[in-house]
């Protein structure tokens, strides 16, 4: 497998691969998101308890899941960068972090908005929302550290280490927050727990999950392409690639 992967340590080859795959990912993102959203919003039945407000779940749950998955992916990239000294893996960190942070923000926003009709306030220190908030802080820390150094490689290494530390901490944070929450208030109904969800609601959720997965990957790819170009700006292939879309640059 490593022999197969090895060429992709070369930025240009990676760029070509990502460039080729991105349109497919983008297209499937649009399709699956459209199907998932329309299905979830219009065709899935209303919840007998929460009415139609539960439809926020079709964004909230996928974005929450992929905000964590993106952090995990970032940590994996960090590990690869540290262990095998592969530069392209280092550059994946600034590509993934803002996308993951955006997913976290979406999960927080939808969670807060969902909370308003359910609990009557925009913000409740519910276990999942609290861990999402902490996750956002972790993302911010990684990004701040990455950009804090004058030398990009040092910054990438520092951010990699922090990402890995964060991933180890993530479950601990999650469970401690859950424990803290149950300790302090048994009264709050955990609305986000769905012990059994009807199949008619589950299917659109699964499609949305797929859509968000593809969306996350596509956004990361877009940013990753930029990172590759940024670090290779002095190379002829990058300059050629950038001057190819000339029609954009006329106004500059």
């Amino acid at each position, binding site marked *: 497998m490593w022999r197969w992967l090895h060429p992709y340590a070369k930025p240009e080859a990676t760029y070509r691969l990502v460039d080729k795959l991105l349109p497919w990912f983008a297209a499937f993102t649009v399709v699956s998101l459209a199907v998932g959203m329309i299905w979830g919003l219009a065709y899935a039945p209303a919840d007998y308890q929460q009415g139609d407000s539960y439809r926020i779940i079709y964004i909230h749950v996928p974005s929450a899941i992929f905000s964590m998955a993106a952090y995990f992916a970032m940590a994996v990239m960090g590990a690869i960068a540290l262990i095998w000294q592969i530069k392209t893996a280092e550059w994946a960190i600034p590509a993934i972090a803002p996308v993951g942070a955006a997913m976290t923000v979406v999960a927080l926003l939808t969670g807060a908005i969902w909370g308003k009709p359910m609990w009557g306030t925009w913000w409740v220190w519910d276990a999942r929302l609290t861990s999402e908030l902490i996750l956002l802080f972790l993302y911010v820390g990684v990004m701040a550290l990455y950009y804090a150094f004058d030398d990009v490689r040092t910054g990438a290494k520092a951010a990699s280490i922090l990402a890995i530390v964060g991933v180890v901490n993530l479950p601990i944070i999650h469970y401690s927050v859950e424990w803290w*929450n149950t300790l302090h208030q048994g009264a709050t109904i955990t609305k986000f727990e769905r012990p059994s969800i009807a199949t008619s609601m589950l299917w659109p959720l699964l499609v949305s999950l797929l859509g968000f997965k593809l969306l996350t990957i596509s956004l990361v790819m877009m940013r990753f392409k930029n990172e590759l170009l940024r670090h290779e700006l002095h190379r002829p292939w990058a300059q050629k690639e950038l001057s190819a879309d000339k029609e954009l640059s006329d106004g500059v």
Partner: protein
Amino acid sequence: MNSWQLWRSVLAKDLRIAARRRSDALNPLMFLLMVVTLFPLGIGPGPDILERIAPGIIWVAALLATLLGLDRLFKDDYNDGSLEQLCLLPEPLAYTLTAKVAAHWLLSGLPLVLLSPLLALLLNLPVDAWWALALSLLLGTPALSALGAIGAALTLQLQRGGSLVSLILLPLFIPLLIFATSAVENAGMGLDVHAQLAILAAISVLTVTLAPLAIAAAVRMSMN
């Protein structure tokens, strides 16, 4: 060149540099947000307790966040000689330095005001008190920046002046804290807040007009 243009040039230069070092301005804000998050985690998420202590938490966190950013206010300019050049301008130093203080306020005070609704939301502050919180920050933060600049200028020559700045400044911040939290609390209970806000405004006006003299004196002292 008239002095107003010079003032704007100093301000514009500082803002441009801040745009190149975005994390310097953003880190104190994130710090503020995290500190505010720590309180519910430490005390418990009960809305009643949080509501009770919210004004104090937010203002204390705001004071700490302000202190974080102060260290760099004059330090870079001092280290690279730009501050010397400001001393050598025909315009009075006390006047040109207000441009730097204004830049500091735009980068630290104003974001605090804009962030305040979010903080209020996190700490379950009654909606009636939101505007009072924002207003108290809007009226109080100019004084924070001006007083902070005095502390920063006084400790310029020290290599590690960070903790000393806090020791100097926190006592000076106390009146602001008292009147601001009182205003927010009163607003939450539906009481009149004009007196507190008026006092805050008076403190700010007084500080912003008089502090530049102290800042300029401190900077000239640091030139030795």
